[in-house]
């Protein structure tokens, strides 16, 4: 895979992103209009839902944290040219392992030990889950998209089985998830805002660490080299297969951490929708940011805002509750269409210059 736009300056990337956002906006307007929802009030309510109060904004940040963690992980896999679509399942497995460790902390003499162990366990779990997909890719020649997608379904199955089986609440098993953890196993939060500063710090640290890794370490350069030309990288003594597994391990680790934050900081239990599709959304964030790490935070914030802001839409505007999903779907399609158009135009331009050259060449002799 070649990374589109990777040759552009920051300004060029910013301009491309603006074009994408305008296209997204226009298409979403069309969708809203077709769905019978008045577009302008809809936008008004989305904005209000996301930014109307500090509490609401704290919800946006709460969504921004897992989105950032997943996006950071995806930067490693995109860098080496892998589509880690299994990020969704890696979040789920991270959440499962965090829950498993936390459960040992309930009624235990030293609950803090299991609380702190929950995070590394989640990171390892996410990594392992990603490595399975990576291994299928490097050893079994299964495309990582199919492997990842398959692993997502398995992870979802594992969660449902745990919630309705071994980890069901005493007496009842329901879609609302496992029993709530006692609050000494919660990530500390600002009273009244239900936002965990620890999670926020983790997201920012992930961003800085990823930026450093990709820019200043051998691993970062090697990932880039293999992503740009794996065959040549071999001649430089690199082993693409190993680095693919490494990139998957990083990607899965960050996703697993996101899962742990969802459990300890947001839901305080394991629920079926623990990943909230943030993994898939993060793929979109990174693509829209054109694989540039410094554009990831604002784009992630935009998506988090849209996600949170549209929750209220069904109630306020009396439209079907699936509309929020439709808007997100429209977003996905528009971003892909803009990317596709950009590639098409690049090829088209190349062709027309070639034709021009053919025409201009002297035809006599």
């Amino acid at each position: 895979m070649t990374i589109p736009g990777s040759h552009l300056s920051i300004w060029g990337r910013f301009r491309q992103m603006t074009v994408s956002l305008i296209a997204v906006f226009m298409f979403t307007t069309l969708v809203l209009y077709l769905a019978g929802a008045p577009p302008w009030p809809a936008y008004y309510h989305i904005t209000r839902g996301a930014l109307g109060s500090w509490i609401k904004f704290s919800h946006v940040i709460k969504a921004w944290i897992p989105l950032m963690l997943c996006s950071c992980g995806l930067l490693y896999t995109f860098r080496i040219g892998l589509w880690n679509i299994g990020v969704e399942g890696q979040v789920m497995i991270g959440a499962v392992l965090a829950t498993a460790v936390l459960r040992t902390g309930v009624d235990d003499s030293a609950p803090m030990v299991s609380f702190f162990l929950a995070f590394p366990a989640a990171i390892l779990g996410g990594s392992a889950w990603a490595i399975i997909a990576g291994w299928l890719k490097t050893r079994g020649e299964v495309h990582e998209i199919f492997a990842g997608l398959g692993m997502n379904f398995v992870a979802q199955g594992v969660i449902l089985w745990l919630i309705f089986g071994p980890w069901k609440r005493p007496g009842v098993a329901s879609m609302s998830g496992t029993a709530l953890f006692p609050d000494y196993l919660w990530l500390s939060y600002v009273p009244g805002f239900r936002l965990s500063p620890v999670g926020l710090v983790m997201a920012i640290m992930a961003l800085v660490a990823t930026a450093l890794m990709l820019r200043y370490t051998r691993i970062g350069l090697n990932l880039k080299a293999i992503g740009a030309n794996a065959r040549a990288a071999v001649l430089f003594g690199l082993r693409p297969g190993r680095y693919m597994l490494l990139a998957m391990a990083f990607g899965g680790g960050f996703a697993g951490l996101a899962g742990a934050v969802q459990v300890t900081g947001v839901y305080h239990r394991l629920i079926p929708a623990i990943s909230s599709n943030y993994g898939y959304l993060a793929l979109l964030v990174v693509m829209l940011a054109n694989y540039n790490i410094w554009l990831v935070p604002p784009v992630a914030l935009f998506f988090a805002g849209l996600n949170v802001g549209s929750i209220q839409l069904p109630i306020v505007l009396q439209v079907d509750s699936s509309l929020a999903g439709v808007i997100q779907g429209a977003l996905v399609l528009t971003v892909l269409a803009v990317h596709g158009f950009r590639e098409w135009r690049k090829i088209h331009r190349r062709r027309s210059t070639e034709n021009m050259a053919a025409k201009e060449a002297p035809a006599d002799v």
Partner: protein
Amino acid sequence: MQIELKNIHKHYGPVRANDGVSLTIRPGTIHGVLGENGAGKSTLMKILTGFTRKTSGTTLIDGHALDIDSPAMAAQYKIGMLHQEPHDFPALSALDNFMIGRVSGISSHRKSHRSELISISTQLGFTLDPDAQVDRLTVGERQQLEIMRLLALNIRVLILDEPTTGISRTQKEILFASLKQLASDGKSVLLVSHKLEDVMALCDEVTVMRQGKVSGRMTAPFDVNQLLQMMFGTLPSPPVHQPAIPGKPILALKDITAPGGRAGLNNCNITIREGEIVGLAGLEGSGQGVFLRVAAGLTNPTRGQITFHDEPLNGSGYHDFKKRGGAFIPASRIEEGLIPGLTISEHFSLNEKQDRFFMTGKTALNQALKSISRFNIKGRPGMDAAALSGGNQQRLLLSLLPASPTVLLLENPTRGLDLGSGHWVWRHLQAQAASGSAIVFSSSELDEIMMVADRTIVFYNGAVVMDTPTHQADADTLGRAVAGGAVPQ
């Protein structure tokens, strides 16, 4: 149907793939277009079949000027082409493939198509099971199927692009017999090939192309030496060669068979010694590329033994080869050798010992600056390697090699370089050989091999057909061996 091509030009930017080519194909004859790879044969055929538009020139069909601008139009004028790679549907049966594109209406008329297939098949002496799945057929049988499909479309001109690559001798005989029959039925057959023996065995008339131009024409009976001269030009007499003092054997390949390329590599036995410069001759895809990749550990042989200083090196990959001081430079520099998007400096960073977690960047920058001046690379350390010209990419690749390599494997090291750069590359390599490195290179230019190699190995159709000290061979013998005229040793 008579086809005349008059003064055809096709330019890709400054490159003239066809530079004033004229050609007449008379009905009822087999016409050969002979030439090396890159001589412009394929471009000419693509123009004739509408896959590419010509820059200028005229196409006359039965005396009428026509502009064939799409494959559909070529089909309309009953021009059919048998491509080198089969263009079929491997998952379907032979009959299904035969029917594709010819079925209209609701019923597929399977029965009548089947009897048509069988009748054409018996006419041409083919034995093909209509129900066999195509991916179980041999390349030769797939060709037969494609020819029958084209005939069922009532084509009047049949163009075959290198049809004898990858098929057995028996199948070749069947194919040639059927082509002769088609010609005697009044169809025009155009055989595009770089194989002298095929052209001589089959054609009534030959047009030889060289560097985009027609370099000669001849009607049967043919004179081999004249054809060779038309193909390769006048070869310079070999310079007096100092035979290298044969050193100790370094790299030995024994009974190696490996897949890849057009012909693969069959039963190859070659031993490379210290300090010698070995030139690999042969038409492109005759096995030289596969040999270099097997020797480097990039391709695993299916059979045979590789030893390096008497230690087995089988299947341990390029890393082991590199660890022993070997290096490989592929022909396609930016596709296979360098990393587009990485700067010159970053290439040196990659090339460093991978012992620290953080990169310092400074040592790599210094190394880059030093190499830029020493190897005369026209570029700055911060420049994307893809932005360099071909010659400078080659210089960069050479500058990334270890200081005193044991074995250097180079695929077409001077391809695309101007004369000056080419000479510069050879001065550099000869100095390395003088200090004991073994240098093995492939080249499509016989002149180059005769000029610099101590020893010449000729590949034909995946096998070594000649292995001789260069000073003992002359241009004619080598040229004949390259074109398949040598008796395998």
